[in-house]
């Protein structure tokens, strides 16, 4: 089996299986990850095949999940901890920010914290409160953490392999609304670097930058724009920290226009950082200010309103039009 079409969730499952098989120090831990196979079935079958010593159902306490994962990492393990939903990471935020992120520096490099924190994130699934948030910027602000988010099955498979092999803590944001999207996964292909962005569609008139769940939307936007005779380039960021500004810069120097799209609120979001840096790097290339499309500065709304809150085809096209109108 070199290449196979599979859902994004299944790609993560296969990736976890491969990690468990290839390194006896890898552990899976989290709430309901064992017998149930996770609330999204991402860890399905792993408990049965690797047992409770490797696939650990934890007490319902997120700080405990991350705090004990840190201890296990200090003992030489490589824990892959799952936080069940984005909105439930906050009890663990202290352990992630004050301990996981800083312990390597505190020890002047003498200890390493190879911990992966998997978090299904983002909206679009009609969930109740706290199940649809995009808190990546809250982590990207913290030195010592690496933040990635795949947009497709192949990246989900390979980026998770690379995250687990990393000696740094990695927050792995999984686009839960894309869990069931199928894509080709070549389990023998040599992957590119974890933190490198990828141009997924070439264009000449404007650059769209997105990551995770918004990449698919941006590709749809590019299709729609093409029908109107506009050529959009789409960059899949893949990694939020570190962030591959070089790839964005190269694209913007060609297209001279940039729109950043994410589900998270735009205020102090990933797009704000990209806008600031690209403005600094590409000041004389830009024909328009960098625009952002994302969530509003309001709590994530109830499910019946989320389609209004989330960036969609028309909202992104509107930003594209505004940029091109400069």
């Amino acid at each position: 089996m070199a290449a196979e079409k599979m859902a994004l969730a299944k790609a993560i499952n296969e990736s976890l299986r491969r990690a468990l098989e290839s390194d006896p120090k890898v552990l899976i831990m989290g709430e309901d990850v064992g017998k149930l196979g996770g609330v999204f079935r991402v860890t399905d079958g792993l408990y049965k095949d690797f047992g409770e010593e490797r696939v650990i159902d934890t007490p319902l306490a997120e700080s405990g999940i991350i705090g004990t994962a840190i201890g296990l990492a200090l003992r030489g393990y490589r824990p892959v901890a799952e936080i069940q939903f984005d909105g439930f990471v906050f009890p663990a935020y202290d352990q992630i920010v004050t301990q996981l992120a800083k312990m390597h520096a505190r020890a002047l490099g003498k200890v390493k914290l190879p911990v992966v924190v998997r978090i299904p994130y983002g909206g679009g699934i009609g969930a109740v409160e706290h199940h649809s948030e995009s808190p990546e910027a809250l982590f990207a602000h913290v030195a010592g953490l690496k933040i990635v988010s795949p947009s497709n099955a192949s990246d989900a498979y390979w980026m998770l392999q690379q995250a687990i092999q990393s000696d740094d803590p990695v927050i792995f944001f999984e686009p839960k609304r894309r869990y069931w999207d199928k894509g080709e996964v070549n389990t023998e292909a040599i992957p590119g670097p974890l933190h490198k962005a990828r141009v997924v569609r070439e264009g000449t008139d404007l650059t769209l930058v997105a990551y995770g769940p918004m990449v698919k939307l941006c590709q749809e936007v590019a299709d729609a724009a093409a029908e109107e005779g506009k050529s959009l380039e789409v960059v899949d960021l893949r990694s939020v920290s570190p962030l591959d500004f070089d790839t964005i810069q190269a694209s913007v120097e060609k297209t001279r226009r940039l729109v950043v799209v994410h589900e998270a609120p735009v205020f102090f979001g990933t797009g704000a950082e990209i806008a600031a840096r690209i403005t600094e790097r590409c000041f004389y290339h830009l024909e328009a200010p960098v625009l952002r499309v994302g969530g509003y500065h309001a709590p994530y709304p109830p499910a019946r309103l989320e389609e209004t809150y989330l960036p969609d085809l028309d909202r992104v096209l509107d930003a594209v039009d505004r940029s091109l109108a400069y």
Partner: protein
Amino acid sequence: MTVESTTARTPRRSTRSKTGATGTKTAGAGSRAGTRKSSGTKKSADPELVQLLTPEGKRVKNAEYDKYVAGITAEELRGLYRDMVLTRRFDSEATSLQRQGELGLWASLLGQEAAQIGSGRALRDDDYVFPTYREHGVAWCRGVDPVNLLGMFRGVNNGGWDPNSNNFHLYTIVIGSQTLHATGYAMGVAKDGADSAVIAYFGDGASSQGDVNEAFTYSAVYNAPVVFFCQNNQWAISEPTEKQTRVPLYQRARGFGFPGVRVDGNDVLACLAVTRWALERARGGEGPTLVEAYTYRMGAHTTSDDPTRYRSEEERLAWEAKDPILRLRRHLETAHRTDETFFANVEAESEALGRRVREAVRAMPDPDGFAIFEHVYADGHALVDEERAQFAAYQASFADAEGV
């Protein structure tokens, strides 16, 4: 013993707490009457605490714990005395260095020497320690150079010693966080099938933290070989223990399903015995134990604190009468015919330690500015590289200007 896994470990023998153990009742002077009053509990007996040496230095029998120090020699007792005196001397030197401006802050362990040396000397080399930021005596037992502890208080690093060289983790400043790290580490020890144990230090204030309670939960569920060593020094900065709990802290363990015991934290022999017992439980696959070392923070919380604002001189004096070092000295003098030469030698040795620490701290250089960018990540990070380069260019711009 061999341990295949956490689940392969035998279950705990008993969840019964050790409150019924024979021992001496809490001495009145230090007990906090308000605790009982506000707790609303009935006229239950004072919590009993394990004591092997009275404040007067008299050895008292204890059916349950005597066996853990049964073979102890006079030489070993003198070793514990030396440990405590040197630790106290180091601690007072650090306080002085803060007053002289050589350190930015110091968290004194004055009064807690017995709790730290007793528990620290119960450990094996392959055991692992997760300290707070006040475990200078435990660090001493682990063979960590005291000078290394001062880097963070001087502000030249945030810890910096290699935790694995002495199995002594870095000081943790966020209250209680390390109890979860200890639990996770202990889960790993069990997975490895090792028979070593882990000890997590924390205080009465930390007992209120969610992380400490989660650590109790996780360690109990996974039967992790960890000892929770709580130094109840009566004060969390300005807040007395009754602001943290309605029940004696050691009794908390029972609700989590493992034993808790209160030990006289100013009695080094009792601390040694009780910690040995708890470690033996951990090694034997019996899971976690909570030890509450009932002691007193004789000094301020840190050099920035002023305890006269919230506690009485009488209270301090009452505890001074139970001084851990004095008590062992009396015992050595009366029961082990230790002469003045020994005490004088220890005194001279402590002066030499103070001098060495003083000189080493004064010679401790400030780190290079580029240290900011070191060890942020193990595998590197593009932004850190970029900012380091920007910083270097900025620095170099001054050199260029000077060169003109």
